[in-house]
């Protein structure tokens, strides 16, 4: 700690010396939260960051004058080194009388209180922060959901938290804290604030990769965009953790049930302190209203390679894509093969297509075992792909990578949802279709979904069957080319080298219907995989038994036939007949021998003739 750093740290008492709150998991450029904060904070505003935040947020708020309130002394030193003014201590340590234009408590209020000193409680901390907010100022506050998707899939119950941070466990039983956005709004109103826009945070409130306007989430339960965003955020966010059930499935189910915001792992709510009528006009630059239409509908950090935070904004013609922040493409691995796919942020400047996600429609038709709908959907998908192909039957750009999880369907119209995923070189249209179908088949089978086909089909077989429903005669060679393409695309997007790509292709080819799905180890899906394996063993055992019985019966039939032949061989008529045809048999045998000798003689002469 330099002298300069020490000068920027105020120690009003209550600091925690052997403690750190700064998040271990950090998103590039602070992720969607930083992008939202940057929109909320006007240039030159005085900002209080109450509680631990990703240091990248300071970079994004370089246009403002930021003060950090932290309980951890090491964290305070780290942020002061970045040039921030830091107050280390409990909320009581905030300078009396000092107010801010914006107060951000995006780690919630629990992390603002220190173990040292008297406890203020949730309401007490809120009250202190509200007092630090100047009239007309904005509060951005996070609340975690005691019944959010993250909690519902956790293997450990919330009430058994043994982490160091659990010196008190605040839960839904505690009436001293709000447990949902409605209660939060009531508390904020009680504290003299005007609550505004609420964002649902997925998949982890500590590192949300998706922030979606809660009212839009509830209003548009069939939105293909929200379907893809929630599924992507939860599938990527869970990594290979152990969970009770698939969080992506649960999140998408919640969305379709109109509970997308109710089951969000957390919420970020904007509130405003009413302007003091006696204080005159608002400061230059003006703070955004909490219901400002300029606020995005969604802010999403999508998979590798990062192109910063992608925003969806509402406009007169509906939703549009908008890309903010830097555009970064990871350096390819030293021995990387030629990239076959990349992300192009520039493609995200058009409207967001409306419609339902093709994957969801197909899953639904599989579950309802509705072959007519499956046929209609798959034919529509295949025809749409074929219509975009060039004269050589090849597809390029975004359509070449358009799997069922990135295509939205509205009536008979199809569109690529996120066109930033692009193929570098055109692919054969059948390979594109087979890749999309293989990915769907693998997810369907390993995910344990009910479907209308027999368990004897492997993933490649189901891909061919889906191709047939789409009206295309795919063969296993095409499916193999599709798996190769899938490995190459994944390798390019993940920055794998050639060996990594080969390994990935081998792994993909080895995927069996009895395997659990890729991604988090979910108890529910592991159990389902075990059930499928058990059923397969039952099937094979029954088949073996049946085959044994059939073999016994066939052997008996063979013995009967043998006996009949022997009986007939010994009969007088057989012997007379055999005697009668003996000359003919001998003549036939002689003719064969002569033919063989003649052929041998010709074969021996042939080479000699060539030598002459």
């Amino acid at each position, binding site marked *: 700690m330099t002298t300069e750093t020490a000068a920027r740290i105020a120690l009003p008492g209550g600091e925690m010396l052997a403690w750190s709150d700064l998040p271990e998991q950090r998103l590039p450029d602070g992720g969607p939260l930083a992008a939202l904060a940057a929109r909320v904070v006007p240039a030159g505003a005085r900002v209080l960051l109450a509680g631990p935040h990703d240091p990248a947020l300071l970079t994004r708020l370089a246009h403002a004058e930021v003060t950090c309130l932290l309980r951890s002394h090491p964290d305070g030193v780290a942020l002061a080194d970045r040039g921030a003014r830091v107050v280390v201590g409990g909320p009581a340590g905030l300078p009396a009388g000092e107010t801010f234009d914006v107060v951000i408590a995006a780690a919630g209020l629990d992390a603002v209180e220190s173990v040292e000193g008297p406890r203020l409680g949730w309401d007490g901390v809120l009250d202190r922060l509200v007092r630090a907010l100047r009239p007309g100022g904005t509060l951005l506050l996070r609340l975690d959901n005691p019944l959010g998707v993250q909690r519902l899939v956790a293997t450990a119950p919330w009430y058994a938290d043994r982490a160091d941070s659990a010196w008190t466990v605040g839960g839904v039983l505690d009436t001293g804290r709000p447990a949902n956005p409605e209660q939060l709004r009531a508390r904020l109103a009680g504290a003299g604030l005007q609550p505004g826009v609420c964002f649902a945070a997925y998949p982890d409130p500590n590192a949300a990769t998706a922030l979606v306007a809660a009212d839009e989430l509830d209003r548009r339960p069939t939105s293909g965009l929200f379907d893809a965003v929630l599924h992507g955020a939860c599938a990527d966010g869970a990594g290979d953790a152990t969970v009770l059930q698939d969080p992506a499935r649960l999140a998408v189910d919640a969305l379709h049930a109109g509970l997308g915001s109710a089951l969000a792992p957390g919420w970020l709510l904007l509130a405003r302190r009413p302007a003091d009528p006696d204080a005159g006009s608002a400061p230059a630059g003006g703070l955004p209203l909490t219901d400002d239409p300029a606020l995005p509908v969604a802010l999403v950090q999508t998979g590798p390679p990062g192109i910063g935070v992608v925003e969806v904004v509402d406009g007169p013609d509906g939703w549009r894509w908008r890309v903010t922040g830097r555009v970064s493409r990871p350096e390819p691995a030293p021995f990387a093969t030629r990239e076959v796919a990349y992300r192009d942020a520039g493609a995200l400047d058009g409207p967001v297509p409306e419609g339902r996600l093709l994957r969801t429609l197909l899953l639904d038709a599989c579950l309802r075992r509705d*072959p007519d709908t499956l046929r209609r959907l798959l034919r529509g998908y295949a025809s749409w792909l074929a219509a975009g192909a060039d004269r050589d039957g090849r597809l390029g750009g975004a359509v070449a990578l358009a799997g069922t999880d990135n295509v939205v369907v509205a009536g008979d119209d199809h569109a690529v949802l996120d066109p930033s995923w692009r193929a570098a070189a055109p692919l054969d249209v059948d390979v594109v279709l087979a890749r999309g179908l293989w990915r769907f088949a693998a997810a369907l089978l390993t995910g344990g979904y009910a479907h209308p086909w*027999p*368990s004897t089909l492997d993933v490649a077989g189901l891909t061919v*069957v889906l191709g*047939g429903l789409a009206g295309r005669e795919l063969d296993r060679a095409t499916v193999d080319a599709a798996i190769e393409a899938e490995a190459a695309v994944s390798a390019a997007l993940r920055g794998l080298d050639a060996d990594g790509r080969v390994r990935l292709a081998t792994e993909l080819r080895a995927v069996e219907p009895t395997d659990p799905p890729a991604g988090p180890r979910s108890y529910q899906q592991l159990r389902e995989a075990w059930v499928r394996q058990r059923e*397969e063993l039952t*099937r094979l055992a*029954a088949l073996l038994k049946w085959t044994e*019985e059939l073999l016994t019966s066939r052997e008996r*039939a063979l013995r009967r036939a043998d006996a009949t032949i022997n009986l007939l061989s010994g009969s007088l008529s057989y012997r007379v007949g055999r005697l009668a045809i003996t000359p003919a048999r001998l003549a036939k045998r002689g003719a064969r021998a002569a033919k063989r000798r003649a052929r041998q003689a010709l074969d021996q002469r042939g080479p000699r003739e060539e030598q002459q």
Partner: protein
Amino acid sequence: MHHANHFYGHAHVLARYCGLGDGHPPRINGYVQHGWNIGDGLAPGHPYAEFTPSLLWSEQTRRRAWSVGRRNVVTVGAPFSYLLSLRPDDPPEPAREGTIWYPFHGWEGQHVKGDHKELIARIRATEPGPVTVCLYWHEYGMRRVRRLYEHAGFRVICHGYRGHWWKDTDPLFLDQQLTELRRHKRVASNRLTSAIFYGIAAGCEPAVYGDPMILSAEDPTFGGTARIRRQWPELHGESVDLPTAVEIARAELGTDHRCTPAELRELLGWANLQEERVDH
């Protein structure tokens, strides 16, 4: 392969459709429904291995099979619909004439109870044109029964032997049936059976009338003829509404669920054949 898959040359038709030629069809990984059925699509009393796929004709049959505990049931359509695809206009449609009449048959182990003479009188009184009577091979072989129909002035034919335990299967059974159906304007029977649906699909006007000839020891599990009349009243009578009949036949034969050859090869377990072809 289950021997019932060979009945009526079904496996042969499917092998031809899958591009495997006219030889002996490879083993099918499952049981192919071998006749129109108001149960789970499989013949009662046949031994089945648990979880072995059932390849059924229609969605309705698939739902019913599931509801009675069958699993691994998949709708692929009737082999006859694959034959129609193989022979959409072969032979070219002739001038259709008369009626092909299928007196209800049981299989070899069953005995039909009923009065053939009474049925013959009903047929003569009803059918406007020449009548071809198609007897099941079992009855065709019974000279007494065959003569009854011959003496009535009907042309009496038999499509062939369906086969049993892979023996004597006539691989062209369905082909012969299709050829005959396409020669006739009407198809009729005293029971709603596969032949009626085949006839409708082959372009005949259907009719179901006359004594349904109850089988001795008929299995009542799925409701028998009484239920058939209750569930498909539109197809019963000397004259029925053709568009309705066509629609029902399409559903019952699963024509819309007919797979592509590559798809069918996967479903029958023929995509990665290990056994050597035996061409006889």
